[in-house]
């Protein structure tokens, strides 16, 4: 695992390098603060709520972490979530089959990821620009496809349980999240493709010289990222019980800022899933806190914006702290 190292240097420098520990501490502190503000926070149902609500972001975060590690980014996942939701609901309505609906949604995700990947590797378009373009294309397309929300026609039990069901006391989305998380934790740290992701983001030319098929790997990671976003989209449409064309606005920013807060660098080559988990939980807990403390809900987006700036600032400080240590 890529654990952080300590160094001599300013206090801030040391702090940003002890990444995961600091993050967990922050999470604990914020949770404690909210608990003091209201007894509602520290209850089983609220905690499960938080976990269930975070599951969509965390699932998307898994894909985004891997993508960022390779040095790329994807700003289209918010629009994709909306499009997937609308398409999935629509196909289920038309075919009365959850399976086909989910397949369509995941397929849409895969195709989007493939296009993103090809635009980056074959057309050599910077992924930030390329995926912003995709974001716009998808958002426009979903309205072209369906102007209004797609209501759940058949009310199928299976479909309902994806986002709202329980296995025992665990919400199903949380179970999906945990399974995906553990599987990809292993893949990222223990397998050859995982190692290659880090190499590609760390030094693309070195990776190529080592025989890694960098372009193929990136395309694959883009596809994986979009499929993860599609899974989130399917969970969301089940939760909302209808496909909303305006869903997911700002979702990509929230996921990316959580991932960066968690220690993944925008520059590539660094990042841990553990950090992502804690980073996203911090964001979700803050949002939850705003709701149950009955603060103005519009604060959510203001605070999210501030956190994005904070997250990138910390990321820069980390980079500088690391580069100060490099000897020639």
């Amino acid at each position, binding site marked *: 695992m890529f654990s952080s190292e300590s160094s*001599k240097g300013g206090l801030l420098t040391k702090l940003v390098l002890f990444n995961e520990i600091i993050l967990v501490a922050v999470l604990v502190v914020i949770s404690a603060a909210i608990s003091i503000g209201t007894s509602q926070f520290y209850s089983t149902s609220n905690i499960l709520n938080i976990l269930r609500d975070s599951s969509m972001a965390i699932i998307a975060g898994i894909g985004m972490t891997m993508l960022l590690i390779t040095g790329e980014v994807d700003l289209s996942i918010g629009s994709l979530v909306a499009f997937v939701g609308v398409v999935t609901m629509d196909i289920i309505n038309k075919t009365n089959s959850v399976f086909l609906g989910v397949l369509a949604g995941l397929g849409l995700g895969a195709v989007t990821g493939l296009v993103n990947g090809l635009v980056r590797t074959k057309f050599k378009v910077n992924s930030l620009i390329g995926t912003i373009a995709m974001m716009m294309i998808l958002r426009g397309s979903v309205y072209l496809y369906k102007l209004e929300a797609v209501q759940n026609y058949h009310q199928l039990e299976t479909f309902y349980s994806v986002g709202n069901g329980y296995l025992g006391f665990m919400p199903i989305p949380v179970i999906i999240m945990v399974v995906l998380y553990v599987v990809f934790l292993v893949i990222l740290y223990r397998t050859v493709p995982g*190692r290659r992701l880090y*190499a590609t983001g760390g030094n693309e030319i*070195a990776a190529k010289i*080592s*025989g890694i098929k960098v372009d193929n790997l990136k395309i694959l990671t883009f596809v994986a990222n979009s499929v993860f976003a599609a899974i989130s989209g399917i969970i969301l449409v089940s939760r909302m019980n209808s496909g909303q064309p305006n869903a997911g606005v700002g979702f990509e920013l929230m996921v990316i800022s959580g991932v960066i807060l968690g220690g993944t660098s925008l520059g590539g*080559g660094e990042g841990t899933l553990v950090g992502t988990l804690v980073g996203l939980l911090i964001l979700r807990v803050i949002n939850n806190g705003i709701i149950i403390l009955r603060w103005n809900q519009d604060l959510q987006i203001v605070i999210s914006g501030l956190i994005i700036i904070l997250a990138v600032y910390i990321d820069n400080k980390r980079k500088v702290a690391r580069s100060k*240590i490099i*000897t020639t």
Partner: protein
Amino acid sequence: MAPAKDAVLDVRKISKAFPGVKALDAVDLSLRGGEVHALIGENGAGKSTLIKILAGVYFKDEGDILFNGSPVEISTPSDSLKLGIKVVFQELSLIPHMTVGENVFLESFPLKNNRTIDWDVLYEKTQDLLDTIGLDITPKTKVYKLTVSQQQMVEIARALSHEAKVIIMDEPTSALTPNEVDHLFNVIRKLKERGIGILYVTHKLEEVMALCDRVTVFRDGKLISSREVSETSTDNLVTDMVGRSIQTLFPRSHAGKGDVVLDVRSLSTEKKLREVSFQVRGGEVVGIFGLMGAGRTELAKAMFGLDAVQSGSISIEGQELRQGSTSQSTRMGLGYLTEDRKGEGLVLQMSVAQNITLPSLEDISSAGFIKRKEETTRSQEFVDAFSIKTPSLRQKVMYLSGGNQQKVLLARWLMKKLKVIILDEPTRGIDVGAKAEIHRLIDELASKGLAIVVMTSEMPELLGVSDHIIVMCDGRITGEFSRESAEMEKILEAAIGQKEYRYAEQ
């Protein structure tokens, strides 16, 4: 040691530590005005750390710096510049799209009425400085059009414009031709006459003996010796640097040759290469020599599949390589140690073990899962065999010294079962001790049947290591020599493009 009475820069008991390594341990150094003082030592000896402290890039942990006898604090690069210390790094710090004049007076523009830049004065003064140095270019030339040697001169002009009292030069001749080196030495002598103190950091002992007044040796972060050049010899210096007496160069022990392993035919690229053809046999070391711009690295990249090829072919053991596929190259047993090890070779954030095993992941994994134990065992073998100095296998490679990083790269390639390996400047920027080790390794590899291509701009290395020498100039092969028939003058003539030497294999 007692500081010299007229020392302009006096460094006393400076220490600096980084995670896992003590880069400098209470070192002293004194520099007089008007002296050229050499600082030498193996990689990791602490030379660049000291320079960076003097340049304000790092901050010392302990010790004092005295400038003209009074203690000073250097915490930022601007502190250093204000004192009159100017460092000319290997990676020059000029702005390519600006003119010579703009670069020389960057941040110290002469002003009209304290407001607007007085361009006339700026270019006049620049011309004066250029005349002083003897650089024959117009001050309005954009820097990216200049050669490395000329750019270096611009850096020196910049130092003079700041009225530098101390100029520190870090490996100044690594990218220069012999003529340019002479020119640089003349300029340095002129700087001496102006009373400027020059700290000259280099690996090249011949230069120390030819140019410098005093020489200080660092080893493992400690001061080993500081003497007048007239009172020492290269052998003494090598002993000081390495801590033991070694032979700096050794002849190839063995010249058994097998079948042709690498066959390059009429290779041409769009930008540089023109019909390059040669063969390398198993167990043979082919040295490729050329000056800057000759096309050596272009050749290496084209052979490996990193760059596009217009025409011609490359075959390994008879099988032709598909262009543009580095993964095929590595699968077919071709390895490539890049010239730019930090930029292109190493993944700095990854550990020693991870860097070593990077091209060999399939060999140490099963069903896609990396076998940690095997990774550790195999990398440890190389760390031991090459004496790679690292606190642990998990140490991130960015913390290692240049020489050790190079060894990691070499280990990376040797871990794969290679048939051919291309080494591009394998010992550049590496100290004498590690150089010898790497030469020995090349020899050993050849005796195991590997076909080796070594690209180098160092004549002694070329002559010492090669069985067969190829000289390139401007993308073409202009000379071929066997080990026995090689002569320095002829090689240089071919390298400049003055003559062509073809040679038929016996």
